[in-house]
């Protein structure tokens, strides 16, 4: 029995070594890029839509902030928009600020960098919360994002508390999880 267990541990260690890259990929797929909570990185995007002036992180102290990294050509992203619009409608007055960080997948020839195209997508999907154009992926990189869509939930003290990836819909289990997380942070 003992030798079988030792062999199993040995196999697991070998697997871990042999598939190290895959293990890292799995962590990223879980939406985790580091220990939580941790200070949220500042952003300095210059081009914004649905707001009169650029929004900075330090202006949002005291509010809960949900960042949505997305691009309008991503179906998983656009199918999640109704959930985000719903969060914005339900929780903005209670202290939630929802921000879209529009990060292109492709170089400029694909049109994802075009402000007019982004504005069209915001209108098409009924998005009224502010959106930053992250055309150089600087904010994306600062947050260690790898997938579209990704989500980062920041508490009133400016700390990243929750991260996640992937499409969800109003009423499904993932929606319920984010809803609960938002309410937890709003209550603090």
């Amino acid at each position, binding site marked *: 029995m003992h030798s079988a267990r030792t062999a199993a541990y040995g196999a697991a260690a070998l*697997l871990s070594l042999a598939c190290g890259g895959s293990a890292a990929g799995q962590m990223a797929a879980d939406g985790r890029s580091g220990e939580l909570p941790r200070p949220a990185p500042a952003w300095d995007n210059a081009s914004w839509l649905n707001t009169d002036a650029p929004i900075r992180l330090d202006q949002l102290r005291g509010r809960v902030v949900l960042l949505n990294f997305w691009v309008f050509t991503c179906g998983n992203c656009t199918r999640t928009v109704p959930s985000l619009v719903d969060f914005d409608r339900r929780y903005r007055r209670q202290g939630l600020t929802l921000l879209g960080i529009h990060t292109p997948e492709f170089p400029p020839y694909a049109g994802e960098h075009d402000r007019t195209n982004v504005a069209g997508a915001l209108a098409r999907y009924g998005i009224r919360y502010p959106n930053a154009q992250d055309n150089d992926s600087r904010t994306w990189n600062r947050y260690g994002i790898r997938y579209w869509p990704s989500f980062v939930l920041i508490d009133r003290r400016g700390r990243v508390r929750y991260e996640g990836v992937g499409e969800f819909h109003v009423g499904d289990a993932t929606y319920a999880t984010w809803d609960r997380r938002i309410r937890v942070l709003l209550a603090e």
Partner: protein
Amino acid sequence: MRLLLGVLLAAACERHGSEEPVRPQLGMRAGEPILSAVPAAGYRINGRVSPALELTTGQVIRLDRGRRSVDSAYFDEPPWARVPESARLRGTLRASVCRTDEALCRIAAVAVDLRR
């Protein structure tokens, strides 16, 4: 024991694999040469942003032909584009891909060096 470890290693690594999520493929369509982007098993190609072959010459060939899903979110067949008859195609194939067991998009960039 060695055999067991070997089998375990092979099984575990194969699941993640080193295969690219998309590969370029030359072919013919209606008597003309084409380049297709063929997704690996378990992947779909985003239909709202067509794959692109970025040639080292600076030219970009968009692979925007091919049947899409009803909501246009994915290509239902490998997207393709006509390519010059005698060209050497060298550069990077870029595609937005979605694994069928995930609900997200990721970018794939594959080096290409093809001759007809």
